[in-house]
């Protein structure tokens, strides 16, 4: 992911106490952060609390924050650390992954209805299910890589892994997706392409 000049401007304005910039940052990244949070842990309340804590912390300590040329990376890293910290000290029983998906999937299928190509939607739906069966870390690395467009280097930094471990994790995730598609025996473009 390439850093942009507008990120620097927005970040600096926010650090100087511009609430518009602050709200703009929220608006720009909240969906990505929530989506990522849901991926990292199944405890939805913990995600929401962590994001709220994070943004409150950002505003209250804005003057002490360092410069950044990638707000997105900064926020992802800060959120991940915060979620992990909160998981450690939380004694709440985690909500199960299934109940989260139930809550969310209803909205999502509505979104998907809008898509013109039914078959493509089905394919993506299948892929989604396959991804949700991967280990949490594999799910995380796939989302960071293919959806959030972070570079391998940024992912190393985020997940606190070395380069080779990130590559291995990605490699295993992709292979596993291929295998689950083969085993299910779906006779669709995706399988043929994966097995070619």
């Amino acid at each position, binding site marked *: 992911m390439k850093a942009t000049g507008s*990120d620097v*401007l927005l970040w600096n304005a926010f650090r100087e106490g511009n*609430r518009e910039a*602050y*709200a703009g940052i929220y608006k720009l990244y909240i969906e990505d952060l929530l989506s*990522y949070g849901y991926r990292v842990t199944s405890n*939805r309340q913990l995600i929401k609390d962590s994001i709220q804590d994070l943004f409150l912390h950002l505003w209250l300590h804005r003057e002490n924050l360092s410069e950044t040329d990638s707000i997105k990376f900064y926020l992802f890293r800060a959120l991940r650390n915060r979620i992990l910290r909160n998981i450690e000290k939380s004694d709440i029983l985690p909500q199960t992954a299934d109940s989260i998906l139930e809550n969310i999937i209803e909205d999502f299928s509505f979104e998907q209805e809008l898509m013109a190509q039914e078959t493509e939607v089905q394919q993506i739906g299948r892929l989604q299910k396959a991804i949700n069966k991967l280990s949490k870390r594999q799910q995380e690395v796939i989302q960071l890589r293919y959806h959030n467009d972070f570079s391998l280097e940024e992912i190393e930094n985020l997940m606190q892994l070395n380069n080779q471990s990130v590559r291995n994790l990605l*490699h295993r995730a*992709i292979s596993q997706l291929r295998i689950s598609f083969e085993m299910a025996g779906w006779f669709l473009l995706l399988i043929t392409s994966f097995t070619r």
Partner: protein
Amino acid sequence: MFEKYAGYSVEDFVKDEKFIAWVKFSHPEEDLFWSDFIQNYPGQQETIIHARQIVTHLSEASRMPVDQNDVSEIWSKLESALAEEGENTGRVLTINWKKWVAAASVILLSALIWWNYPSTSDQPQVYARLIEQAENPLKEVINTTSGTISVILPDGSTVKLEKASRLSYDRDFTGKQREVFLSGAAFFNVTKNPEKPFIVYANELVTKVLGTSFTINAFEENKKVTVSVRTGRVSVFKNTDLTRLDADHKGIILIPNQQAAFTKEDETLVRSLVEAPQVVVSQQELRDLTFTNAPLPDIFEALEKAYGVEIVFDKALLSNCRLTTSLGNETLFERLDIICEALEASYKVVDAQIMIDGKKCN
């Protein structure tokens, strides 16, 4: 440089950094690289097509769907926490709206918002009559500050609500249309959703859009209600009996730099240009618009393009007129004043068109 990819499998491509970047961002240079590659290794074409599709699907499928309720819930909580902090320090919210739209294409919102349920006291009458008809319970924001505040709606649309203005809206936009009610003035930046039109009721005017940005000025004590468009298209119609309307209602269409004004006295709805039309092309395109001893019709055509307006003039009559000028950041009318002065011509705005009245040049 192609050899590396000659023996790649679908899976190899799917994991390749350069390949992923191409699929996701398609820079022209990368397009060139990969089309050259396919020309050199036509056997790899299908592999690439499949790999492309998988990367695209992975990008979509790996995103956990987000619940919009969470987005607004977290923000409201932050807002109350920050409002307290704001009161303690007496911080004043400053707004430099244009700068941020330009810098980050973000529509920004602020934290100083008072959430209230509709109360019947002190409400402007027309507005009160309109919100009475809403089907679902409404959320109301009243700007009692001396500046502009921002409101984020359940669909992610944002509203810059000016002082002494109020806005009511369906708490989660569950209906077929996204309906909001305004008393006062506000700038709207509406999230695109062709399935659910966004409708603003403001005094006797109804504004309907799919996704765009525009300003409405509807204080009840004023004689006029106006809607002016910044981006996109909106349709506006009269609503003199203050009812709610059905979705298929047709009104006049406004494009950027146009506005519609409803005059209460004679109940007319007139289209015209906004007070200071903004350039609608990029600064880069604008920079190229320098004219040296150029025929006037060429200059007018450039102005039409730069401001997205229509200029009506007699081409035959003015084709001998020549000018040297460049287009900068002036407003359209400043620019026209300069040109008309040089040519002893004049202009007027009629129904959002600019009519030029000039003389033949020798």
